């Protein structure tokens, strides 16, 4: 039986984080398209339909991740999106996807704080891909 290789689009302007995430995802058997900016991610999206996407929140602008979520969902409504960021509770900046209101404007399926363990990330991806 052929095992399908799933593709993951990862956009993050931190080259080290991008390298590390890509490394673990490739090791876990995914095909990784790694880009360093919102602009590049948008270019990739016009040509390719990834099976799942992971976007950093702050890239060129403070809301790059939100914009990418929105654009990806408009183009490929069925592709799941994970929003990842290092900004977190300490600053009082909290949002999640728990309330209806938040789900309405954050077009992501999952919100993750950076620094999750690779296995956990893989688990979440599998859940979203239903595999």
């Amino acid at each position, binding site marked *: 039986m052929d095992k399908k290789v799933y593709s993951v689009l990862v956009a993050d*302007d*931190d*080259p*080290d*984080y991008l*390298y*590390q995430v890509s*490394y673990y995802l490739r*090791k876990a058997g995914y095909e990784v398209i790694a880009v*360093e*900016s919102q602009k590049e991610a948008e270019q990739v999206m016009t040509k390719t339909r990834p099976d799942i996407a992971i976007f950093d929140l*702050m*890239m*060129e602008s*403070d809301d790059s991740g939100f914009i990418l979520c929105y654009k990806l969902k408009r183009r490929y409504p069925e592709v799941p999106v994970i929003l990842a*960021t*290092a*900004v*977190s509770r*300490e*600053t*009082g*900046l909290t949002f999640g996807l728990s309330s209806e209101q938040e789900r309405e404007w954050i077009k992501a399926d999952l919100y993750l704080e*950076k*620094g999750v363990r690779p296995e956990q990330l893989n688990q979440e991806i599998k859940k979203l891909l239903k595999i």
Partner: protein
Amino acid sequence: MAQLKVLVVDDEPGIRSGVARILKTFHVTYPFMDEDYTYEVLEAASGEEGIEIMERENPDIMLLDNKLPGMQGVEVLEYVRHKNHNIVVAMITSYASVDIAVKATNDGATDFIPKPFTPQELKSSIEQITKQQYLKRITHKLDEEGKKIRYQFLSVLSHELKAPLNAIEGYMQMMKERQLGNLVDDYAPSIDRSLQRIQGMRNLIMDLLDFTKVSFEKHVEKVQEVNLEEAASAAIVTVSPYAIQKDVQFETKILNCKKIWADPNDIEIIFNNLISNAVKYNKKGGKVTVTIDCNDNELFLTFEDTGIGMSQEEQDIIFEEFSRIKNEKTRNISGSGLGLSIVKKVVALYHGLITVESTIDKGSIFTVIIPLPQVQNINNGL
């Protein structure tokens, strides 16, 4: 023109129409206000009616008689306080009762207008209240903006501090799990990257220290004569290892003005940041020209590089905190995004200004202009 709504709650029709007549042609100006205030008068013959109109119309000012047919003035006042309406209440009282005055003041009345009152008395009360309202609104607005700026600063700062920690932690984890092999050499790139991120974080912390120093310290006591040529050379020496690596040459032109009165730390911040930027964003084999000049009134410092330059949009944001130009050419240049905002703050302490002219692929010229003599200026300013 801005209009304030004044609600008169009084059972005497003569008082209500009198107020309406007096305020119809009245307007208040105030030196700091953007616009004049005029008044629209609403009338209520009882406390109950007053509350009803207040709920519907949201007036800014209430002139409240205490002796009313049903509900009393102080009761209306209590209602206002409970509902937390953003309204200023002035009591109209026909007899001076200390008890009522004390109770009314406790309940939030801000002024008393004796009854009967002359048009002039009414006008001066309304004028006072308007100014109070205006200042309250302005303070509120400034507080909100201040909070917002601090909040943005903190969230970006937390992002900038945590990103390198996450990166280094990730590399350490990979080493611990021997993801890339058993030899130290397998991890050479990871180690290099970790060291670079640590250096970046150190720079950010140093910049943050400068930033808080500039924001909170008094600079007046530290003012002394500073030799500008020496300050420039010191900054050049600091950046020279990097300049040698990039093969960047320096030229310093002292046209005039060798010394100024200033806090030496401030001058160091200006020179260090602008000279290191001129090297960082330069091309290999480029040049940095520092010019020190002045006339009778102003000191001019210019920092010219032959580097990558910036677009107009980029020039518009570079003095903001944590703004960094992110593109292909700046990808490998590390910076905290605080340097220029610090320089701008320092220059502002001396009532000066900083400007930039830039052409993509040609280079940038930063110009700092500081009025002379600085000692008087700085004393007035702080």
